[in-house]
C-alpha cells in the first residue's frame, strides 16, 4: 500500500465514498418505495381474503383465497351491478374527454397563433381560473344547472369541460404550441390552406403528444372525481363508480370488508392500467407544465 501515490489514495477514497452514497440512495429509495406501495399491494391481496382474515395479519397472501368479495361486491346492495356503474363512468368520461380535447385545442390555437383584441386580458383569465378555487363558483353553478333543469343528468359534468373550463389544459397546450416552429403552418398557408385546415392537418398532428397527455389526465381526474357527481347526480342508476363505492361503504361496511376492498381494486384498475400503458405522457405532461395532484 505504501507505494500508492497520494492521488491514487484520493481516487480510491472518492470511489469508496461514491459507492457508499449509491448504496445509501438505493436503500432509502427501496424502503420508501416499499412503504409507499405496500398498502396498494396489500389491498389487492386483502381483496381475496375472507372477512375474518383481513384484520388478522399484515401479510399479502390470503390463507384461504376467495373471490367472494368480487362476486358479492359486484352485485351491490342496489338493483344494479357494478357493471352499470362502470358504464356510467364511461358515459361521463368519453364526452368529457372529447369535449376537453377539442375546446382546449381551439383555445390554445387562438392564444398561440393569433393576435386579437383583449388577448392579454383573456390569457390572464386562463391563469386566474387556474388559481381560482372551485369552491367559490360551485354554488352559483349548481343554481344555474338547477334553473336549466340539468340536475341529475351528466350535462353539468360535461358542458363546462367542453367549453374549455379546465384552464390547466389550455395553459399546457398553449405552452406546447408556442414551442413548436410555425414554418409548416406558413407553408400550408402559402399553398392556400385556410386556418381551420391548417389547424386540423398541421397543428393537431404536431400537438398530438400534448393532446394525449390532456386526454389521459382528464380521464384520470374524471375517474377519480367524487364531488361533482355527488352534488349533481341523485339517482342511483346514474352513479359513476366513485359514488357507487361510497354507497357500498355506507350499506355494507360494518361486516363485508372484502366486498369493499374488491370493488376498490376494480375502481382503481382502469386508472392504473392506463397509467402504466402511457406513463411517458404523464411524466412529460407534469414535467412540462406542472400539475395538480
Amino acid at each position: 500500500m505504501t507505494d500508492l501515490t497520494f492521488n491514487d489514495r484520493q481516487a480510491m477514497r472518492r470511489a469508496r465514498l461514491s459507492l457508499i452514497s449509491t448504496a445509501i440512495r438505493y436503500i432509502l429509495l427501496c424502503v420508501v418505495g416499499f412503504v409507499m406501495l405496500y398498502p396498494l399491494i396489500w389491498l389487492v391481496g386483502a381483496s381475496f381474503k375472507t372477512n375474518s382474515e383481513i384484520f388478522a395479519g399484515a401479510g399479502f397472501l390470503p390463507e384461504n383465497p376467495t373471490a367472494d368479495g368480487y362476486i358479492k361486491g359486484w352485485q351491490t346492495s342496489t338493483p344494479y351491478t357494478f357493471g352499470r356503474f362502470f358504464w356510467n363512468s364511461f358515459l361521463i368520461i368519453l364526452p368529457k374527454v372529447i369535449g376537453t380535447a377539442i375546446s382546449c385545442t381551439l383555445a390554445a390555437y387562438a392564444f398561440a397563433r393569433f393576435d386579437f383584441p383583449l388577448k392579454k386580458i383573456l390569457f390572464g383569465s386562463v391563469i386566474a381560473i387556474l388559481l381560482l378555487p372551485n369552491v367559490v363558483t360551485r354554488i352559483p353553478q349548481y343554481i344555474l344547472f338547477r334553473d336549466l333543469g340539468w340536475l341529475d343528468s351528466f350535462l353539468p359534468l360535461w358542458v363546462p369541460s367542453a367549453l374549455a373550463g379546465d384552464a390547466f389544459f389550455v395553459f399546457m397546450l398553449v405552452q406546447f404550441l408556442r414551442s413548436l416552429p410555425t414554418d409548416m403552418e406558413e407553408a400550408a398557408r402559402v399553398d392556400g390552406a385556410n386556418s381551420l385546415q391548417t389547424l386540423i392537418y398541421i397543428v393537431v398532428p404536431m400537438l398530438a403528444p400534448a393532446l394525449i397527455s390532456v386526454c389521459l389526465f382528464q380521464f384520470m381526474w374524471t375517474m377519480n372525481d367524487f364531488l361533482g357527481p355527488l352534488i349533481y347526480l341523485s339517482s342511483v342508476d346514474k352513479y359513476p363508480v366513485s359514488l357507487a363505492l361510497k354507497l357500498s361503504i355506507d350499506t355494507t361496511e360494518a361486516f363485508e370488508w372484502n366486498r369493499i376492498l374488491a370493488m376498490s381494486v376494480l375502481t382503481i384498475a382502469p386508472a392504473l392500467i392506463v397509467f402504466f400503458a402511457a406513463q411517458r405522457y404523464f411524466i412529460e405532461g407534469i414535467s412540462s407544465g406542472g400539475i395538480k395532484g
Partner: protein
Amino acid sequence: MKMQRLLGLGYLTPYIVGLLVFTAIPFIGSLYLSFTSYDLMSEPRWTGLANYERLFTRDRTFIKSLNVTLLYVFLTVPLKLAFALFIAAILNYKLAFIGLFRTAFYVPSILGGSIAIAVLWRYIFATEGLANMALATIGLSPVDWFGDPTNALFTITLLRCWQFGSAMVIFLAALQSIDKSLYEAAAIDGAGKVRTFFFITLPLLTPVIFFNLIMQMVQAFQEFNGPYIITQGGPLKSTYLLPLYIYDEAFKKFNMGYASSIAWVLFAIITVLTLVAFWSSKKWVFYAGDKRS
C-alpha cells in the same frame, strides 16, 4: 389583417362562453349570494353583512373549522414539498432503474384522489389495521389514528403527503436541468455536498418550489374527499375542513347564502396567502439570468 384578428376570437369563442357562464358570472353571483339569505325555495333576501357577522362572532363551528383548515394546510404543504424534494434529490444521481423508481413514486399521485384510496386509508389506519400491525412488529404500541382528535388530522395529512409524486417529478425535472458546470466549479472551490445543495441547488430550484407551493396550497385548502370518506369531519370536528362545512351548509341544509359567505372567506384567505407568496417571491425566488438577487 382585420380578418385574422376576428378569426382568433372565433377560435376562442367556446372558451369565452365558458369563462363567462361558468366562471365569471358564478364568481360575481357567489359574492352577491354571500350577502343574502337563500334557501333555493324563495328569492334570495339581502341581509347585508349578517352572514359574515354570524361567521366571525357567533359561529363556533366555523372558527373551529377555520383553525383546522389552516393547521391542515400549514402541516401538509411543507411536509409534502420537503419530502418530494428530498426524494427527488436522492433520485437525481446516476442510478440504474431511475425511471422505475420515478414511476413507483408517482403511482399514488395517480390514484390518491380516488374514493378507493380513501377507503384503503380507513382500513390501513383502523385500530387493527396495517399501520398498527407494522408498529407492533417493531415493538411500538398501537396508535388511535382516527379516534383521537389530535391524531385524526395528521392521518389525513399523511394521505396527502403519500401523493408527493407529482411535486417530485417537477422537482426532478428541474434538478436534472441544472447546469453541471456549476457543481464542478463548486467542487473545485472546495464546497462540500451539503453546502453545494444549499448554496447552488436550492437557489436554482426556487422557481419550481414557488410554483409547487402555490399549486399545493390552493389544492390543500380545497381538500374534500379524504376527510369526507375517512372521518366525516370527526372526531369532535377535528378534521372538519372548510370545504366540508361549505358542502354541508350548501347541499345538505341548502343555506346557499351562508355557504357562499364561507366560500368567500376561504377564497379571501387563499388570495391573501397567494399574494403574500408572490410578493415575497421577489426576495427569495431566483430566476437564472436575473440580476436582482
